């Protein structure tokens, strides 16, 4: 079976990395994801996760596709800041961020060329939330909320 070498895929990935959100470890999405599809996916995620206070789904360029509440620009700014700080903290782009504070917990995930940020109540189960976020982004990248 023919296989693509890792070096080739890494080079292709490096050529495409522009900006904070483009540094996706699994940057597979090149199709346009509509805001409606993202909103539907976010609604489903909110329904599925009782601990969720709010969340946002963003493109690789950091544009908000869907966000809870009425401040999408704040979600974009704060998500970009969190991911930028997280990237600076290590020697490679982060895939997931989990910050647990006394006031709540913040999760950020890059997957399939998209990014998601979620805020939950304290003691939310991280593995479940990351699983849900990853599944949401993957299904969005594959073509829409009907697959979520």
């Amino acid at each position, binding site marked *: 079976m023919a296989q693509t070498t890792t070096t080739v895929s890494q080079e292709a990935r490096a050529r495409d990395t522009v900006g904070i959100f483009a540094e996706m*470890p699994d940057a597979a999405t090149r199709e346009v994801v509509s805001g409606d599809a993202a909103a539907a996916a976010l609604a489903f995620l*909110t329904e599925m996760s009782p601990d*969720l*206070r*709010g*969340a946002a789904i963003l493109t690789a360029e950091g544009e908000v596709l869907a966000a*809870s*509440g009425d*401040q999408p620009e*704040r*979600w974009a*700014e*704060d*998500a970009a*800041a*969190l991911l930028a*700080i*997280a990237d*600076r*903290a*290590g020697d*490679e*782009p*982060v*895939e*997931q*961020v*989990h*910050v*647990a*504070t*006394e*006031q*709540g917990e*913040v999760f950020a995930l890059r997957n399939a060329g998209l990014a998601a*940020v979620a*805020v939950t*109540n304290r*003691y939310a189960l991280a593995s479940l939330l990351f699983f849900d976020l990853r599944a949401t982004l993957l299904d969005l990248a594959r073509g829409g909320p009907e697959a979520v």
Partner: protein
Amino acid sequence: MAPKPHRVLLDRVSGYADEAAAYMRRRRAARRPFARLYYAGGRSHDHAEDGAAGAELFAAAGGLIEVAGKGRS
């Protein structure tokens, strides 16, 4: 006399539920704020709240928590 089979099953299930509840209570009591970053391949790294990167991560997370508000009631 041996207990009825359904009684054994019920006892076992309630035992598991008790274990899970106890685990959650211990987790709540022992857990402190943390910032954890995960990288490709499953590697992760914790940053202390009083470290340079940790303080920035907590500040950025605080901004997001503020945007999200109290969430659903």
